[in-house]
């Protein structure tokens, strides 16, 4: 095959361009720390990155939602605990006041305390967390319980639960609704107990003792239910945290550049580039012109 000087220069130039492209890509990878940056660099790898990041955002949203639910249920649990304690105090009072040795005066004084307990219970039931009624369902701007003219509390919230979307496929209830029978039973038991004390009705006091026990148990059950939900949420949170860690690791493995390999490639390319430059300067002396005198 005939070889012309043009061919030699063209070949060397092609080699130089190739090595320069390797240098440019290697430098970009080293400076960014990433194997690829744009969809044009690696279409399918880029899609994988987008999918991983999409999952990452999803997990972040889920963790946020779990925290929202935990704090909402946590606040509910605090209030339920307080209400449970009120019921325990009322039960103690009932045991004391059902004793046959006590008279109307003592029971009247106890009725005052029960009145305070009832008010405290209503305050707890109407408690707001971040400005929203805890036990009013989705009617968060309204009080969960409102007293009528006789002082009887009735539920005025909504019959809808507050649903939190942990993900598009996992939705959990983040509240305890005031229309749960336990609330009505507790209000009724306290109200009846107060009336029995005021009327110094021994039989009614015995009945109150029983209903207070039952209502107290209802509050305990509700508190336990919230505790159970919080435990389940804790498991959910842990699994999302694990997922977040795995995703971060996966993204790093997928996108991060293998620095030693790129440096070695750059070094190799640099040698080839220098050799090409050297050869280009040599070609001009490889001509008959230089030997004709």
């Amino acid at each position: 095959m005939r070889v012309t000087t043009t061919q030699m220069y063209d070949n060397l130039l092609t080699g130089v361009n190739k090595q320069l492209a390797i240098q440019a890509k290697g430098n970009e990878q080293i400076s960014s720390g990433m194997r690829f940056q744009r969809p044009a660099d690696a279409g399918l790898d880029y899609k994988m990155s987008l999918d991983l990041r999409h999952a990452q955002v999803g997990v972040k949203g889920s963790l946020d939602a779990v925290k929202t639910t935990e704090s909402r249920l946590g606040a509910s649990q605090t209030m339920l605990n307080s209400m449970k304690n009120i019921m325990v105090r009322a039960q103690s009072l009932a045991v004391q006041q059902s004793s046959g040795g006590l008279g109307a005066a003592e029971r009247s004084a106890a009725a005052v305390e029960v009145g305070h307990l009832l008010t405290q219970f209503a305050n707890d039931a109407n408690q707001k967390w971040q400005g929203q009624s805890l036990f009013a369902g989705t009617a968060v701007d309204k009080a969960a319980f409102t007293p009528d003219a006789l002082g009887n509390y009735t539920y005025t919230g909504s019959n809808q639960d507050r649903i939190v979307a942990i993900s598009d496929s996992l939705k959990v209830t983040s509240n305890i609704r005031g229309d749960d029978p336990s609330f009505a039973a507790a209000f009724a038991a306290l109200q009846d107990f107060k009336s029995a004390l005021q009327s110094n009705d021994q039989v009614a006091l015995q009945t109150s003792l029983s209903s207070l026990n039952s209502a107290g148990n209802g509050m305990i059950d509700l508190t336990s239910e919230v505790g159970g939900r919080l435990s389940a949420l804790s498991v959910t949170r842990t699994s999302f945290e694990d997922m977040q860690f795995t995703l971060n690791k996966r993204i790093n493995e997928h996108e991060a550049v293998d620095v030693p390999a790129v440096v070695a490639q750059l070094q190799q390319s640099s040698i080839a580039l220098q050799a090409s430059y050297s050869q280009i300067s040599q070609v001009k002396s490889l001509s008959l012109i230089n030997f004709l005198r």
Partner: protein
Amino acid sequence: MIFSALNVAASSLKTQQKAIDVVSHNIANVNTPGYSRQKAELGALSAEQLGAFDFGRGVELGSISRSVDQVVNQALLSNGPQQNYWQELKTGLTSIENVFGSLQSTGLAAAMDDFFFATQQMANAPEDAAQKFNMRTKSTALTTQISSMSNQLQGVQQAADANIDQHLVSANNLLTTIGSLNVQIRQHEGTSQGLIGAANDLRDQRDQAVRDLSAFMPVQDVRTATGGLLLQTVSGDLLVQDGEVRQLARGAVGANGNFQSIVIAGTNTAVSGLDKGGKIGGSIALRDDRVGGYIKDLDNIAVNLSFAINQANASGVGSSRVSQLQSGLGVANSALSVSDAAQNNPFAGQIQSGSFTVHVFDAAGVPLTPVSKATINITAGVSSMASIAADINANVPGVTASVDVSGKLLMNAGANTVGFSDDSSNFLAAYQVNSLFQGSSAASLKVSDAVQADAGLISTGQINLTTSGINMGDNRAALLMVDLQNKPASLDGATAVTLSGRTSLLSTKYGNDVALASQQQSFFQAEASSLNQQRQAFSGVNVDEELVSMIKFQRAYEASAKVIQTTNQMLDSLMGLIR
């Protein structure tokens, strides 16, 4: 006889000088694109018979031939359109990589994720006004991203179309050059030397011009016995025949509806096969297939996002309501069914027989008494915008409705406000009443004017159908929006894909297109490089070779001069005998 020797030597001097001229011409054109090395073909002059002997009369330059391998030339002609087609595509696609973002800022994908993240946060705190502001911000960012991408891509389409115009100018110049060279070659070879193929440099120029033309469009060449050249497109449209040239021009708007076709100047017939290769084909593919495809994909993302989110929003309610509203989309004909395709509404086909309920609230936000609501029935294929307005006027207390000049539904509740619920007909979402998004394509998609003015209009809950009651903590509408994040949807009739899936597929499609263009361009460039090497090997000028030839001819010249000198001495000797 002595004079014969002089004549023979003189013929040699003349011929060697001409041969050195050819060498000089070769060296001068060592870097000329398309040049084929030439060779002086020397031949002995016919002998003179004197008596029983033939005496040679010297040497002459028989012809100057060029070294051309037609097989390689033809291969280059096939390679040119492909290499330039993929080069044009690669360059065009690479220039729009910023549109598709990078891992530092993933653009549309990040905007879509942010939007659904904001949706989830809003759903989990529907009573929080800040979440609605955030939702409006992320919605605006998403629609801006989509419309900006669409507008940028449309700009690229326009630029690719402008490139086609430039390429047509270049191709037409080359066609003119080829036609002109055809005439020159015929004249030169017909008059000067009378030999087919004698116009070496003109033929080189024509071959180069044809190769240059093949960079713009695929062509077929047919060479005639008389040295002429007939050039046509791959589909058989005549471009050049001898001196006759048919130029390319832009015709009427083509089948794609947006851009002018390419025709033979003076005719209305579109030239077919131009999209098969060359820079013109590359620009057409970039404009219509690649960028056009991305715009279509973006439009599909926009309509699926818009309709799906609006479906949830339209039947829901936020923390505030409006007293006056205008639908985001109108009808072309208010008397025609709202579900008719002639309404030019991409969502019209989604309307089905069903109903929606309009609720009216007083200035204090309390449901109107004694009647707070009315249900408007929609019959697909029957109900028109005018009939719906009439139904609202007749049934919804304290609300007047009409159709404006742009075919949009107007509702006015005076001092009261209105809300909507339970739209089983899809009318509200299709015509963007009480919607979050407005617009029917990627380019026109935006957050509705009403939501831009009041983020509280973004729906989170739903109005109670029985009591018209609204609860601030209700998040049923927002939960429906959250569900859309990973729910496959398809309004375009294609396979249902999630919105984030559509987004990442768009980037992947672009990435794969670039990869294919790069791979094909590299392949055809390597092929071109190999073919050019082969052409150089056959037709290229090797300076060393030429210098050796030069020495050879120089030495022959010197020898011939020596013959003349010797002959002169012989004549001197002869003349000396006379003195």
